[in-house]
């Protein structure tokens, strides 16, 4: 005769990590069941064959406990755990196949929704952090603009987290559907369908939180307007030239400049020759959100455009070609030893000779007029196009010219290089 004590002990050992009370209650039920069955004339072996051995009973209790836990407090890890326990319990049976088929769709949906919700929450935190960073770096901004920027951050973070909560609520709902499917899989022979839940779901908190976040988001949205920030960003992004440009001009004796070095964020750079025979002229259309001053020192003329810190999202705006320009005019016949121009997203137009010329842009186009001198030319545009004398090339790089002429290097990431 099978020893019920040893069965009880091995079930207990298998379930050592589960709450003592639920294991005890379950064991009591099965023990009583076996005892009553024996009284009714069956042997212990017979009963155990029907309800399964220690391993199966333990797996059953464990699967039920995992389902209950996931139902009381739905979450992705609990759902994954419950499904794993149910699969384990149904090992290699036909019920497992039908369970897997019935539950796999809602299971996948639930996990996907949890994932989307997590990504959105991370996005909300990132939006808040980014805005905090922008505000601390906006040293040139007035208080209204800072409030506007902060409100934009509140709007973005609030909206993202409200949507995230929506996905979370949906994920929890689908989790319950999945758990019901899993549960009916566990009761082999049972018709599938809705099973009443042991514990009423807690979702009221989620809805309230989502509502509050939405209100906060819209308050943030409204808060951005008094500063005029949205319209300002909108007009910059839509390439509207600001009316209040500060046009600044400088002049440097050409004899003192041998090298020219220019870097802009998204202002266009134009280098051309002029009729002035002695001076290099610099004209900069300075919008309120950018700043830069040319400096001539030790034979080198340098200009670097930077954010003035007046508005947020400068990194974002700098990805867009600007409407402002930096124009440099050199005397006809002047030839710098070296010309180095780089721009994040402004275009560069060059029609003056130089000993060595190097132009680098991210998304800006490059126009180069080679008529002025003989060059050894090299151009690359890995994600853009190269046009030589009106003809578009198939390749993304181009080399030409005299072997020992002055070198010209033109490189753009995804702009167009046009050589005339």
């Amino acid at each position: 005769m099978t020893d019920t004590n040893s069965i009880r002990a091995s079930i207990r050992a298998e379930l050592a990590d589960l709450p003592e009370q639920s294991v005890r209650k379950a064991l009591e039920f099965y023990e009583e069941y076996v005892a009553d069955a024996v009284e009714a004339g069956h042997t212990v072996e017979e009963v155990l064959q029907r309800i399964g051995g220690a391993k199966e009973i333990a797996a059953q209790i464990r699967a039920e406990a995992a389902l209950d836990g996931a139902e009381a407090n739905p979450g992705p890890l609990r759902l994954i755990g419950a499904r794993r326990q149910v699969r384990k319990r149904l090992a290699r049976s036909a019920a497992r196949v039908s369970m897997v088929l019935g539950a796999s769709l809602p299971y996948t949906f639930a996990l996907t929704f949890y994932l989307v919700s997590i990504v959105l929450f991370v996005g909300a935190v990132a939006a808040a952090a980014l805005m905090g960073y922008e505000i601390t770096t906006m040293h040139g901004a007035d208080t209204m603009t800072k409030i506007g920027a902060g409100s934009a951050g509140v709007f973005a973070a609030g909206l993202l987290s409200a949507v995230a909560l929506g996905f979370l609520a949906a994920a929890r709902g689908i989790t319950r559907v999945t758990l019901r499917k899993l549960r009916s899989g566990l009761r082999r022979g049972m018709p599938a369908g809705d099973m009443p839940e042991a514990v009423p779901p807690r979702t009221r908190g989620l809805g309230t939180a989502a509502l509050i976040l939405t209100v906060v988001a819209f308050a943030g949205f409204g808060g951005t307007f008094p500063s005029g920030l949205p319209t300002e960003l909108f007009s910059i992004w839509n390439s509207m030239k600001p009316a209040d440009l500060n046009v600044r001009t400088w002049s440097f004796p050409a004899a003192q400049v041998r090298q020219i070095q220019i870097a802009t964020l998204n202002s266009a750079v134009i280098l051309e020759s002029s009729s002035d025979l002695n001076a290099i002229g610099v004209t900069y259309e300075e919008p309120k959100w950018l700043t830069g001053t040319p400096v001539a020192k030790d034979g080198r003329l340098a200009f670097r455009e930077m954010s003035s810190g007046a508005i947020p999202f400068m990194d974002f705006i700098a990805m867009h070609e600007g409407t402002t320009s930096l124009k440099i005019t050199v005397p006809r016949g002047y030839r710098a030893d070296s010309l180095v121009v780089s721009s994040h997203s402004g275009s560069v137009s060059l029609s003056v000779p130089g000993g060595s010329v190097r132009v680098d842009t991210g998304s800006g186009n490059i126009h180069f007029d080679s008529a002025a001198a003989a060059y050894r030319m090299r151009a690359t545009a890995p994600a853009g196009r190269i046009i030589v004398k009106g003809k578009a090339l198939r390749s993304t790089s181009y080399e030409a010219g005299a072997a020992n002429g002055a070198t010209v290097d033109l490189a753009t990431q995804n702009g167009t290089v046009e050589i005339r």
Partner: protein
Amino acid sequence: MKKGVLDALVLAILKDGDTYGYSLSERVSGIMEVAETALYPVLRRLEAQEMLSTYSEEHNGRLRRYYSITKKGRAKLREYAEELSELERVIRTITKGGDKS
């Protein structure tokens, strides 16, 4: 339509009088095919939902747990019965249709 058939069946059996696990299981399996171990979770859940209450009585020197339907359980059973009688009408119509053809 097959909502909680086992739950309803357990409540219906208990309506006729209190009983214990093994006897309940025997009666359920006489009516529908159910896994031997399926009953315990159902009972536990019905208890958690206060559809049934339990008490223990001594039997042959050990405790035997009896299950008893509650007021809430009776109300739920009536609900099930209404749903199922509708289902029954549908089934009857379907089987009649099948006989004719």
